[in-house]
Structures are given as C-alpha cells and as structure tokens.
C-alpha cells in the first residue's frame, strides 16, 4: 500500500513548530504523545458536537478550544503553547472549511471507523516522525557532535531525505511505469 502524500504533508507541517522545543529524546516523545492524544480527543469531541456549532462558529469554537487547552496545559505542566500549532496542522483541512456541510452519519455506520482510522493514522504517523527525528537529532548532535543538528538545517536536510524516500516509494514507482501496449498484453491463460 502506498502511503498518501497528504499524510506526509500534515506530519511535516505539524513537526515544524515542534522543532522549536529544545527537548531531548524522552521529553520530545512525551510531548508528541500528548499532541496525538489531544488530537484524538479533539476529533472525537468535535465529531459528536459538530452540529451544535452552526456555520462559521465551528472555527471560532475550535480555536477557543485550542487556546483554553493551551492555557490549562501551560498552568499544569509549563509546556509552551507551540503544540497547538501541531494540532492545528494535523486536523483535517475539511474540518475548518467554511463551505463544508456536516452530513448525517449514524454513530454505528461504517463511516465512523474509516473516519477515525484516518485520524489515528495521522496521529501515529506524527508520533513516529517526531520520535525518528528526535532520535536522529540525539545521535547527530550529542553522539557524533555534528553542528548542523544544533540548528534547523540539519533536521531539514534529514526531512528532505525522508520526503524523497516517501515520494519515491517502490509501489509508486511501479505505478509510474508506462502501461503495457494492447498488442503486447497476454491473453487469458489456457492453462489452469
């Protein structure tokens, strides 16, 4: 299965504000897990309450929700509020689209697992991405003493490599090959 391009975009854009945190491997992992947990909580909350916010008030409610939670987390743990930017970029774009209309979906329909699976995938992908880059930063900066990892350049170059590998996944390369001409296609096999 080819992982979609949009998943990488969301993970990467969500990671950029996370880069501001001067955290080591462990703290970065904990912060990433908090972001993922909060994202899933937000998605679940707004899935069930979306119809209570008519029109554009949903967007205002969403940002107010983020600000209130940023304040609560700052008061309790002193975690600077950059994490809400990551949550914002992980949230599906259609959710904040003014033109999007919520459709009637029953709680026990097939749409629900699919919807939550996509959000779960984004969250797990983001956590994995953060942990991978925190590990690379830890090794590059502290073990190998590479100065580029003390600044964004090192991480951006690593992300460029990840993006290259993501874009050129083997399955994708196979699908980019030109199709076989009709005259060269094999017919149905006569043998079982």
């Amino acid at each position, binding site marked *: 299965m080819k992982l979609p*391009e949009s998943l*990488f*975009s969301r993970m*990467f*854009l969500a990671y*950029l*504000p996370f*880069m*501001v945190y001067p955290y080591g491997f462990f703290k970065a992992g904990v912060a990433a897990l908090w972001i993922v947990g909060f994202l899933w909580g937000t998605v679940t909350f707004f899935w069930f309450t979306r119809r209570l916010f008519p029109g554009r008030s949903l967007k205002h409610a969403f*940002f107010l929700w*983020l*600000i*209130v939670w*940023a*304040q609560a987390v*700052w*008061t309790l743990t002193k975690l*600077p*509020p*950059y994490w*809400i*930017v990551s949550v*914002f*970029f992980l949230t599906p774009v259609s959710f*904040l689209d003014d033109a999007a209309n919520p459709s009637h979906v029953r709680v026990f329909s097939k749409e629900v697992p699919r919807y939550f699976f996509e959000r779960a995938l984004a969250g797990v992908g983001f956590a994995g991405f953060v942990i991978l880059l925190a590990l690379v930063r830890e090794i590059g900066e502290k073990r190998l003493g590479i100065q*580029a990892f003390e*600044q*964004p*350049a*090192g991480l*951006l*170059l690593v*992300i*460029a*490599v990840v*993006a*290259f590998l*993501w*874009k*050129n996944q083997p399955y994708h390369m196979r699908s980019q090959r030109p199709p076989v001409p009709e005259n060269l296609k094999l017919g149905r096999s006569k043998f079982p």
Partner: protein
Amino acid sequence: MYFLIITFGFLLAMRGARPAPLQRPGEGLGRIWSEATDFFLTTSLILALWALAMAFGKTQAGAREYAVAGLGIAAYLFSRYQKKTDTFFLSVLASVFMILSREPDLLWGIFLAWIVSSGIALFQTCFLGLRYKLLFSHVPTAMKGWPILCLLAGLISVVLRNLGSLVF
C-alpha cells in the same frame, strides 16, 4: 529565536497568505514584506497590551495567571480583524509567547519582534527567489515537491545562521 524564525518562516511561506504566482516574483516580494509589516505591528501591539496589563497592580496577577489565554485571544481577534490566515494567528501567538519568555521589557520586546518579522521576511524572500530560479532549471521529478523545498529551506537556514553570526 533562530529556530522560531526558520520554522515559522517556512510555515508562512507554505501556508501563509495566498501567494502570488511564481512567474511574477515582484508581486510575491511585495506581499511578503507587507505581511511581515502586519506581523510586526500585530506582535508589537500585543506586546504593548501585555505591558499595559503589567503596569497596573490589579491586572498584573490575572494577566500572569492567564497569560496564554489572554495572548491567544488577543492574537486571534487581531488576526480576524485583519482577515489574516489561521497560520498567521498561530505564528503571532508563538512569537509573542517566545519574546515574552525571553524579554519582558516592552522596548526590547518590540526590537525582538522586529528581528523576528525581518528574519521571517528575509527567509521567505530567499525562498521565493530560489523557487523562482527553479522554474528555469531541470529538477528531476523524484526531487520535486517537498524534497526540494526542504533542501532549499535547509540551505537558506545555513546561510541566515552564518549571516546572523556575522552581524550580531
């Protein structure tokens, strides 16, 4: 602070105001610097409001206790009033928070806001210029999109870092 400039410069370049077509870099350049001016003015205004809240004994405790909520609501309202994007609002909030955690004095805070805004605009200008030049070069298909953009951002950040160390 340097991390903030690079990361939010990149974010605003990709998801900030609707960019001008790459074929017309002059127009894009104008937009970048006008956005940077708005960014600086909005950040400075919020810093001034914060200094005002800190000036009075009655409001000081409340402002300190609900700093994130207060700054966030102010940034949101100012961004909405100017019809800015959500990324702009979040970038302003992050910048104000970082400036206040570094420098509580108003004048120095405004100076830092100017540095951040100029840094973001400089980053975006370099980024726009390089993207424009890429239009005339044969970038392999495998490198188009995020790989080349991240590579450019990384190279610009190296240059700005060295430039900054020369100046300051």
